[in-house]
């Protein structure tokens, strides 16, 4: 799997599809045009939301995707799900290219790739009954009708921990956690192979988060699901993920097995991101080194040259502003642990903010 992850390099070679690879994203790019003023505005520039991202999701596993708000996580998810067209790059599902397929051709793949959305209030139509919401996939794909559909929907409701008797209720009659279960049931209806979870628990309180996460884990075991799990809660991602991808400003900063990335972060951005997450243990929290980044995330309309993190990076040197680092395995790391950095963080290195930038 990992040898196909050649960073941002464009590979024309046929994708290496070992049996355990479900989805492979290859150098995916999504630019949103920025229109000028006026009725027919010209495109003046582009928001480079996703710029050359490659990743793989293995069968039956969970790939966590973390990064701060605006780094392109959700855009990437929507490109993979085929909700918005990609500017360039490829998405392979079970070895077949599904990038920017027309709606009719995409249809069979819709059954395989489903999404769970962040907002349990916004993702359910307030005017439709729960039975009709969960039954919608059956109606669209004409897989079950009438009493058969009702039975299927009620089975699904039971499976996700909802009372099947609530078939005729409206979304407004459910709590946030129950609504998210409705969203899970809807995503599960067509027995997909991949579920893209776009911050599925961000809008829920902590105890409900645990319930929904446990439900997702149970479903993964039962149905052999693969998840692409997007979140900005790092502990949640660590809990659910087999592998983790860290994104910064439309690019992958670091990729690797969960333990590797969390315990031996090599990219300074990953290290800073992880150090910002609150620790449950106060002693550990006190002992921990916090890396305070200065400045704001640069605009994705005009991203920095070279390594996109270099203006904020405590380790940045001249080369970082010129050369774009490739996503590759660094010395001493397992080959599955990839980092896009010229000067990766060494174990035990103190990443206190250098004063270089404050002098300016």
């Amino acid at each position: 799997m990992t040898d196909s992850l050649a960073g941002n390099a464009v590979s024309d070679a046929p994708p290496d599809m070992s049996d355990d690879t479900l989805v492979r994203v290859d150098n995916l790019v999504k630019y949103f045009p920025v229109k000028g003023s006026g009725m027919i505005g010209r495109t003046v520039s582009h928001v480079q939301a996703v710029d050359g991202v490659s990743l793989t999701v293995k069968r039956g596993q969970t790939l966590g995707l973390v990064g701060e708000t605006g780094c392109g996580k959700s855009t990437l998810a929507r490109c993979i799900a085929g909700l918005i067209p990609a500017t360039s790059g490829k998405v392979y599902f079970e070895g077949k290219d599904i990038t920017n397929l027309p709606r009719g051709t995409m249809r069979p793949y819709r059954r395989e790739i489903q999404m769970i959305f962040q907002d349990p209030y916004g993702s359910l139509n307030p005017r439709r009954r729960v039975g009709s919401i969960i039954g919608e996939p059956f109606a669209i794909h004409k897989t079950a009708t009438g009493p058969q559909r009702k039975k299927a929907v009620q089975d699904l409701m039971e499976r996700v921990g909802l009372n099947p008797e609530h078939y005729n209720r409206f979304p407004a009659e459910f709590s946030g956690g129950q609504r998210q279960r409705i969203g899970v049931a809807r995503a599960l209806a067509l027995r997909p192979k991949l579920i893209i979870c776009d911050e599925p628990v961000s809008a829920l309180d902590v105890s409900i988060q645990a319930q929904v996460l446990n439900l997702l884990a149970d479903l993964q075991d039962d149905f052999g699901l693969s998840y692409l799990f997007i979140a900005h809660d790092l502990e949640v991602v660590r809990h659910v993920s087999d592998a983790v991808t860290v994104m910064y400003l439309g690019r992958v900063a670091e990729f690797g097995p969960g333990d590797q990335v969390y315990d031996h972060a090599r990219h300074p951005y990953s290290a800073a991101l992880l150090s910002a997450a609150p620790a449950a243990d106060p002693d550990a929290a006190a002992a921990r080194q916090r890396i305070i980044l200065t400045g704001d995330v640069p605009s994705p309309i005009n991203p920095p040259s070279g390594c996109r993190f270099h203006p904020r990076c405590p380790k940045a040197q001249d080369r970082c502003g010129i050369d774009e680092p490739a996503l590759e395995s660094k010395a001493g790391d397992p080959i599955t642990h990839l980092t896009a950095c010229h000067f990766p963080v060494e174990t035990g290195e103190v990443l206190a903010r250098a004063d270089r930038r404050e002098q300016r």
Partner: protein
Amino acid sequence: MSVTELQFQAASVSDAPAVAVQGRSQWQLTWRRLRSDKVAVGSIIVIILMILFAICAPLIAHATGHPVDTAYPDTGEDASGLPVGPGVHGFFLGTDQIGRDLLVRIAYGARISLFVGLLTTALATIAGVTLGLVAGYFGGIVDAILARFFDAALAFPFIILALALASVFHPNLAIVIGVISFFSWAGISRIVRGQTLSLKEKEYIEAAKSLGAGSGRIMFLEILPNLLGPVLVLATLYIPTAVTFEATLSFLGIGIPEPAPSWGNILAEAQNFYNTSWWYVVFPALFLLVTTLAFNLLGDGIRDAIDPRTERLFAGSKNGRRKRGKGKGTGGLNLDQAIMVGEERDLTVDNPMPAGEG
């Protein structure tokens, strides 16, 4: 949240398995609120009576023994050839200038008025909703083109078009329906388009897309149900406007041609007799007034019933159950807010019709 509320919640949770809570749809709730609104219920009764009156027009003609187009120069006119008053010679509402039974003619006129009012509203609503959905959902160039059509239709001087059409063709029912529909759909389209623009960005639309739903399915099954409230209010308020519109055209002689009766052309003839035969003007005008008023009040009632917040505002006062729209004249309608329930979103509607007519 207060302690009592918490206790109440706890109690209701523990009670939940025992007491089956019946999920009520938005429409069931709306209907319940509407039923408790006396003015709206009264309006519904008046409208039903008016429809029965129109349907029973041949029965009325049969009962009085006065067919609609038969003139009674002997009994229906007095010595000087003027219409006779209500109650004279069995003419309950008097006669017109050639001695026809005014009651029978008003009943037949009601058929035309209600038929035109309901049919044009239905046509305008279907066209307006469909075009508004298409413009709002697809956006881009489709929207740009359709939006210009909305503007053109709203800016068109309707009397001039009606006059032109009437002079080219003979005035007839089809032209009346066409003209009124043509001037009604664009207002609905604009509102539907505006709402569609915001609704299509909802996550549940994205969810439907990710399930593989097509554009038609998303427009009519996901977006439309969220628009039905405001559209229903708008449509109810369009009916009286269309009725008045028809009367205006007929009054000007470019609507329903004689000898077929319509409230508009009866009034047009009656204007020569207002100083001798008051009933000739008053009764058709009264029917027009009562009908338009009933539809307007019903539209108001539906709007209040759809929007639970107005009811909550006035829940405490005895006579303030209903919140009246501002500036509601007989002509121009101003639907200042139709609010979508469950979304807590205000929908502002300005001037559904191009001008106050009639």
